[in-house]
């Protein structure tokens, strides 16, 4: 059985004030992800969370990054990523009112699902090797959920990176 240690949430991390949340619109291409990660490595930044998916525009993807800017000035992450020809736009969402969601899918021993369901988990399938559930929430809720899972005997768990969108009031 996997032992899952809860990932420190952004709030709990000592480097909290160095975390930027960026939303990138990028051109799809063989080299795009390499270029983005290359800049992050070369400039001494650290990825805390990443998710990639298609955007509304054909041929372009949305990358959401949670990133530690290390010893550099906070805005350097955005500026360095902006330099890439593959990167169409970078939006810095740090400190903004946002929807910040992560997805977790887990397989647990079938017995005690009530506590999970009460938190809002959804059952995806049941079988002889356990029950698959999904849950989504902000980083803190997901971390709590995974802690809860640990008490229920996790068979397997996968978590997505964050997807973040600015709230428009």
């Amino acid at each position: 059985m996997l032992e899952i240690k809860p990932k420190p949430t952004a709030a709990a991390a000592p480097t909290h004030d160095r975390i930027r949340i960026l939303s990138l619109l990028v051109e799809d291409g063989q080299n795009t992800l390499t270029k983005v990660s290359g800049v992050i490595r070369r400039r001494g930044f650290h990825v805390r969370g990443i998710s990639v998916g298609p955007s509304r525009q054909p041929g372009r993807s949305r990358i959401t990054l949670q990133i530690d800017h290390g010893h550099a000035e906070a805005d350097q992450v955005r500026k360095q990523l902006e330099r890439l020809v593959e990167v169409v736009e970078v939006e810095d969402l740090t400190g903004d009112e946002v929807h910040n969601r992560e997805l977790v899918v887990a397989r647990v021993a079938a017995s005690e699902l009530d506590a999970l369901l009460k938190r809002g988990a959804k059952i995806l399938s049941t079988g002889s090797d356990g029950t698959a559930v999904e849950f989504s929430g902000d980083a803190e809720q997901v971390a709590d959920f995974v802690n809860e899972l640990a008490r229920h005997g996790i068979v397997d768990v996968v978590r997505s990176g964050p997807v973040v969108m600015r709230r428009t009031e």
Partner: protein
Amino acid sequence: MILEALEREGVEYIFGYPGGANLPIYQHLHEHPKLKHILVRHEQGAAHMADGYARACGKPGVVFATSGPGALNLVTGLCTAYMDSVPMIAITGQVVSTQVGRDAFQESDVIGATSSVTKHSYLVTKIDQLPRVIHEAFHIATTGRPGPVLIDICKDVQQADAERVTPQYIDLPGYKLNGHVNLDQARQAAHALAAAEQPVILAGHGVLLSHAERELMRLAEAAAAPVGTTLLGIGAFPVKHPLSLHMTGFMGTGWCLKAVQNADVLMMVGMRVDDRVTAKLSEFAPNVKTFIHVDIDESEMGKNVRPHIELVADARLALEAMLPHITKVDAGRAEWLAQIDKWREEHPLRYKQSNGQLQPQDVLIDMYRRTKSEAIVVADVGQNQIWAALWWNYDRPGLFINSGGSGTMGFALPAALGAKFGRPDVPVWCVAGEGGFVMTAQELSVAVEHQLDVKIVLLNNFSLGMVRQFQDDFYGGVRSQVDLTHMPDFVKLCEAYGLPALRVEKFEDIAPSFDAAERTKGPFLIDFRIDPEANVYPIVPLGKGLNEFREAPEYA
């Protein structure tokens, strides 16, 4: 198709080396007599030649190399160009597209290996991408902050037939050009500069790249603000101008460093403000109340020094926009300039002249007198570079070429040859130490083959002089692996390559040797056996602030 596209972009010279994966291009080279191909002896030489060519004439340098080792040999040259913002197009052959990823013969991940040393790169696997890619590559390499762009073209694409397509427009939504000036910020910057009690302007390579020298001079004179240049900014402001501080940085002049450390407003134009300029960052320009930073690359703002006023713009446009707002300057300006003149007298550049050994400065000063500020000097890296920077009074842009950011030994000879291809009308001098020279000495063949009129001044001290000086001063005086006594006889080496050369060991022989070099058409080398203990001064000890610069001991 590739060659046609290059013709369309106005390419004149290609520096290259053929091999398995770019043979289809070479097969058709002879059909394009407008493209002059220079066969180098090592791909690194090709990259530096293209670099020297681009820096001398302003057009992008073009390089060909084959896949695998051929392309990887370009990496140092690409990095050199990238660090110094030099426009370059590298076209490398890649294995057949269906072989990519199978570890084919001479296959390597060239895009992966060069991504961090190119402004942009392309892997071309289909013929229909090619016209657009080549056109975009030239656009990206030459606009904004220039830089090298690599195009890796699979061999089957080179062989494919295609209809001629001329791309109509460039569609690069992710490529941001910061040309325009925020007029409000320009006005603020101008007011801050004019109102400063002790202003200093530092000018970098960006001033030369945007041809902002005239605007810089007009602004400096209007604001009565002294101007220092970075190593790469040399030529942006005439050294003999009364407002000149000459070179800044950890090997800059004493009066410039004093001025920077006492300035209350520091305007930095077209520069990266790197560690060689600031020395210890926390002690850089401690009295500055207002940093003004002008650069076309937004990411330079606050990368090293946080400016209070930032102008993300082309240097020429930014300085032009500031000029009308400089009206009345601070009343204490005369006092500040007098103080700088005093520092200039107190901390002159000086060197040992009387110990009977040949001093590098003697060589350079004689050379300077002859060339009357007409020649391009291409320096290598190390002591020779700093001597060549400090002991010439460059009074025009484009006369000093060297590898500043990357500090690539072996740069000078191939870059000087490239510079001569780019500016055949201008005398070109190559200044190098023997250590760097032998790293790319094989390119002498190119000099001889094309009878390039490049004069090579070898400042030979039989050691890695700068490393030796650092070891002496900052590493406990332990001289480790700096002894280069086992070097070729350079006169005989040149004979073997087919160019004339002289050895000079005495001061009296400097002038006659230069006479001989100038009389000779074509390449010429002078092996100056200089004082092996000659040092670069001033110098700021590693890890110290600029105000702690050490000067040459006073000699009788």
